């Protein structure tokens, strides 16, 4: 059991705060780990990176190694990286970099050092923050409530198929495509079959979490030229198990649900704004009054909600 959430605002605003509320209301669905994907006001050039190093004593050498890889691809830091450390062994980093010459090629090289430092999101707009702990704990540690943006995803994890580790938390970035993130509620039963198949095609898995498969699978289908709508529909046929997952991009949020109709999604979609969660009571943190609630309860369904104005003043 996990909890997922999505939020779209009419114009840039406190989307981080709303996602924290949606996830705090669903903490009983899984308090192992919590994560957020927030889409801020997009940059014209350069990428925002979020990442995690697994040994904070090695922070300086990780950074040096990482910067060398950037420079090899014609990129460098545009701002000084910032770090969040705690009692835990790992640390989290936020960086802003200039465009590498070939994003996919750089991601592939950066992933060669993922045992020590893992890039967890890359986007003009997307920032993924994830860690072990409940919604408020993770939000306070990483300042999620203050993140301004237009839309985003949230996830509360109850680990059922693999260990509780900070980097095994959701959301997962569909590397190497910038600004694509997924959150998943459920279990993937043909995980190993697909993992083997994608591994042979050259994709790298950074965790043992079955949900990561969806992100990698989506990356592969996008590289084959599928649209989001086509990928969502195809996933219901090709991915086996119980799932309701959401995928976010710069232009909107999509969702797909398995053919067994096991995992719920509750949506309020009014005046161009959107709030979705596994449970209705979470959506009511955003819309306390009685509103038109849509239950996506049927089998094999997909939907895409678009984001309107991304740059209007907050």
């Amino acid at each position, binding site marked *: 059991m996990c909890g997922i959430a999505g939020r779209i605002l009419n114009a840039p605003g406190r989307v981080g705060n709303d996602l924290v509320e949606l996830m705090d209301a669903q903490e009983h669905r899984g308090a192992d780990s919590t994560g957020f994907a927030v889409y801020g006001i997009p940059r014209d050039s350069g990428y925002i990176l979020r990442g995690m190093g697994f040994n904070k004593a090695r922070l300086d050498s990780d950074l040096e190694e990482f910067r060398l890889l950037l420079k090899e691809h014609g990129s460098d830091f545009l701002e000084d990286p910032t770090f969040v450390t705690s009692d835990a062994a790992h640390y989290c980093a936020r960086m802003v970099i200039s465009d590498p010459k070939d994003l996919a090629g750089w991601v592939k090289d950066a992933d060669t050092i993922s045992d020590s430092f893992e890039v967890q999101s890359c986007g003009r707009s997307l920032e993924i923050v994830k860690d072990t702990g409940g919604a408020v704990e993770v939000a306070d540690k990483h300042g999620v409530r203050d993140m301004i943006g237009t839309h985003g995803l949230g996830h509360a994890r109850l680990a059922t198929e693999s260990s509780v580790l900070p980097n095994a938390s959701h959301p997962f970035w569909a590397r190497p495509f910038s600004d694509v993130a997924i959150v998943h509620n459920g279990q993937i039963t043909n995980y190993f079959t697909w993992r083997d198949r994608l591994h042979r095609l050259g994709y790298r898995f950074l965790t043992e979490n079955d949900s990561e498969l969806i992100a990698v699978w989506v990356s592969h289908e996008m590289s084959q030229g599928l649209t989001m709508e086509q990928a969502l529909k195809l996933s219901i046929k090709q991915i086996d198990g119980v799932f309701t997952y959401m995928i976010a991009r710069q232009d909107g949020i999509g969702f797909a649900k398995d053919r067994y*109709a096991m995992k719920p999604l509750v949506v309020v979609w009014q005046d161009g704004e959107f709030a979705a969660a596994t449970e209705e009571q979470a959506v009511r943190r955003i819309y306390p009054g009685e509103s038109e609630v849509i*239950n996506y*309860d049927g*089998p094999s369904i997909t939907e895409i909600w678009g984001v309107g104005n991304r740059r209007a003043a907050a």
Partner: protein
Amino acid sequence: MSEIVIDVGQRPIREINEEIQTACKTAKPIVVRNTLSRHNLGIGLPPGVDITFEGSVGYYCAGLNTGATVTVEKNAGWAVAEGMSDGFVTVGGYAGMSCGAAMIGGLIHVKGNSGPRCGVAMKGGNIVVEGKIGYQSGFMSHAGKIIALGGAGESCADALWQGEVWVAGEIDSLGVDVNVVEPTAEEVAEVDAILDPLGLVDTSRNWRKMISGQRLWYFESRDANAWLMI
């Protein structure tokens, strides 16, 4: 007779349920307000109680009901009246997944549609849905009747055991091991007797009654394919 009003808000559910149980002892009608779609409201209600939940409720509302008359004004989340042994539960809007799961008696009346697996594993009582029943409704139902007046979703009456699913309207598809039979006039009269107190009798309905094909009652390895849902 004045009513007892209980406000939910963000207070602990245990505290609210204790207040509801205390109010049940007074024989006054109970109104629960500001429910915010929260879970587990009104569990294990005693017989003779009249309780109304304003707006929508979350999961398991009126679970283990032993005889109360419960009204949910708007929508109910998962498994409303789960495990009910007796009583009458009305949902004004949509009833979420697994409505009446494993109930053994009483009546549920849903005025809107119901979600997937309505009446899953029910062992008695009746469920009347004015709208459409969702995917796989009646899944492994052992006894009792699920009566849908507005059609049924996919995989209707899947792996039904000994219960009955009655549908007026379109059925998107049938589940595994289901027989559709023509009901007798006596059987229709039995269903109408359930619908009559709800004011829902309509003699022009073209009923389809679904019962178990009984192939899944005994495992035969040569029939293994029948056990695969898809």
